[in-house]
């Protein structure tokens, strides 16, 4: 089959690799019909995530048709399914509590060592996202082996297009969980850093959960425009002082809840970011973290901090004093996709959540390396690239 493989920093290629096979009873093989490039794939592309190996197949947002099932799978050949990016067994203590992203068993035993050493306990497996999270082959391919297929994939009802449901795999549940983690109360003002897909879905979700106002922060005009369409007020941090603007826009109180949907590649050109960048190049720290610092400082006293953004390592200059003195609460974590999928699928069917607005480009899988470069270089115009294995390759 053809698959998008990682070979190093800014080096991804479409290679011919072996087709996947059923290896465990609960496996299914999915023929991919749509797969997206995620903002967090750019972390891999830029070489920020350790434990990548040459030849790793990327991609954790995908859907397709069931073509083969193991004896323990509940799926049937021909069904259309969306696959969660978290690989969860459904049988362990954490899955029992619907903490699917904390699944004990989704990550192969030997790979759990890395997480155990780095974080104290190993995390669940993820598709196409380094060996820290299992080393699973991802979905930017023609076919994928999906473990625990009786727990993860959700069957798509007839009449819904791929574009409408594809984002159930990651970014829609991630944006929803981000808003849920902000414990929004009716009448709240919520500030969201980052108007990428997760931030934009967090904006929609926050309103659905009763927020009176959402203030969205970014520096790409097109992304701010999308946030405005969903009813958010906006701050362009290149034009306005973010903290000062937030204070003035909230009557001097600060937002009740803040959501950092930026993460480790925050693009602000501030002194502490530059210092972080130097430290990163000296291997003193891996995460550049301006957005989370700013969110904590801006948040009102007794407020809530939600951090869907991906961080991988250790940070310094974390404003622990502000966090403690103001009595803030922080919630974060990889998304428990399986927990949110059924309700969010309903929300899509009922027209409460719009997903298709996000897609700016559709390309052939063969063109994926071009897509990565385009997404990396132009995040104003490129909001989401969906790859289709059966698309014709575009002429140059």
């Amino acid at each position, binding site marked *: 089959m053809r698959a998008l493989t990682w070979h190093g920093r800014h080096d991804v290629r479409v290679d011919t690799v*072996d*087709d*996947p*096979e059923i*290896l*465990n*009873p*609960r496996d299914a093989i999915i023929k991919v019909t749509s797969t997206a490039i995620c903002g967090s794939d750019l972390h891999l592309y830029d070489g920020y995530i350790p434990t990548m190996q040459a030849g790793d197949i990327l991609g954790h947002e995908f859907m397709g048709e069931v073509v083969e099932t193991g004896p*323990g799978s509940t799926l049937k050949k021909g069904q259309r399914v969306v696959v969660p990016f978290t*690989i969860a*067994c*459904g*049988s*362990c*203590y954490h899955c*029992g509590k619907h903490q699917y992203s904390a699944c*004990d*068993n*989704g*990550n*192969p*035993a*030997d*790979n*759990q*060592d890395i997480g*155990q050493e780095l974080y104290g306990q190993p995390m669940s*497996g993820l598709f196409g996202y380094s060996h820290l999270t*299992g*080393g*699973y*082959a991802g979905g930017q391919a023609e076919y*994928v*082996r999906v*473990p*625990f297929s009786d727990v993860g994939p959700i069957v798509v009802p007839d009449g819904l297009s791929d574009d409408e449901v594809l984002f159930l795999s990651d970014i829609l549940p991630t944006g929803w969980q981000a808003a849920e983690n902000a414990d929004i109360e009716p009448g709240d003002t919520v500030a969201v850093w980052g108007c990428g897909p997760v931030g934009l879905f967090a904006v929609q979700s926050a309103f659905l959960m009763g927020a009176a106002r959402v203030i969205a922060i970014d520096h790409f005009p097109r992304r701010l425009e999308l946030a405005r369409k969903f009813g958010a007020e906006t701050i362009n941090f290149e034009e306005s002082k973010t903290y000062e603007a937030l204070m003035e826009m909230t009557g001097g109180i600060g937002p009740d809840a803040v959501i950092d949907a930026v993460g480790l590649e925050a693009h602000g050109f501030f002194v502490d970011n530059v210092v972080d960048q130097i430290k990163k190049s000296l291997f003193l720290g891996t995460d550049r973290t301006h957005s989370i610092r700013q969110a904590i400082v801006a948040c009102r006293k007794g407020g809530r901090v939600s951090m869907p953004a991906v961080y991988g390592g250790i940070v310094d200059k974390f404003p622990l004093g502000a966090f403690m003195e103001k009595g803030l609460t922080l919630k974060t974590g990889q998304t428990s996709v399986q927990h949110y999928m059924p309700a969010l699928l309903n929300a899509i069917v009922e027209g409460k959540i719009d997903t298709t607005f996000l897609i700016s480009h559709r390309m052939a899988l063969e063109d994926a390396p071009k897509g990565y470069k385009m997404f990396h270089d132009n995040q104003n115009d490129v909001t989401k690239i969906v790859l289709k294995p059966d698309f014709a390759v575009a002429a140059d």
Partner: protein
Amino acid sequence: MTMVTDDAPATTAKTAEGREAGLAVHDDKHGDQLIGRTVTINRPRAELFAYWRDFANLPRFMDNVERIDTLSSKRTHWVVKAPGGKTVEWDATIIEERDGEYIAWASEVGADVPNSGSIEFKDAGDRGTIVTATIVYDPPAGVIGKVIAKLFQREPAIQARRDLRRFKQLMETGEVATAAWTRKQLEEEKG
């Protein structure tokens, strides 16, 4: 006299005194290296005990163990992978057993690698069962020492932790998780 003033398991001791105290309570010890790992498995105690008590099952999650033959109700024959396609072998006897709770075994005289181990099962309410594996072994020096290092994948504590994770996966999910996507890769993984 050893000085141990806390309740932490001896396998986590920082001091020689603490480690010796741990070895001292281990019956019929077969070495001076003590390792132990605990895992919580979301299955009933009796089921886990029964699976482990049939030693022929253990190679399904112990990567380095090629096979275990049952010689009698108390005796087993272990065939363990070694470098260069070779194997090391020994007979082991169950030296203590409490139904549903505890099994201890030890290699018999003449073993290539003298060792002993135990496995304990304790109820953990709605979390299932707390399983603690303890291994005592005698790491030989020289060429054999290198064989042993390979045998236990560098670090016996890491090997035990990985084996217990696979035991947990098998008991909770019915399978051992793998990131391989072809049979060939899976076979290479198992080595």
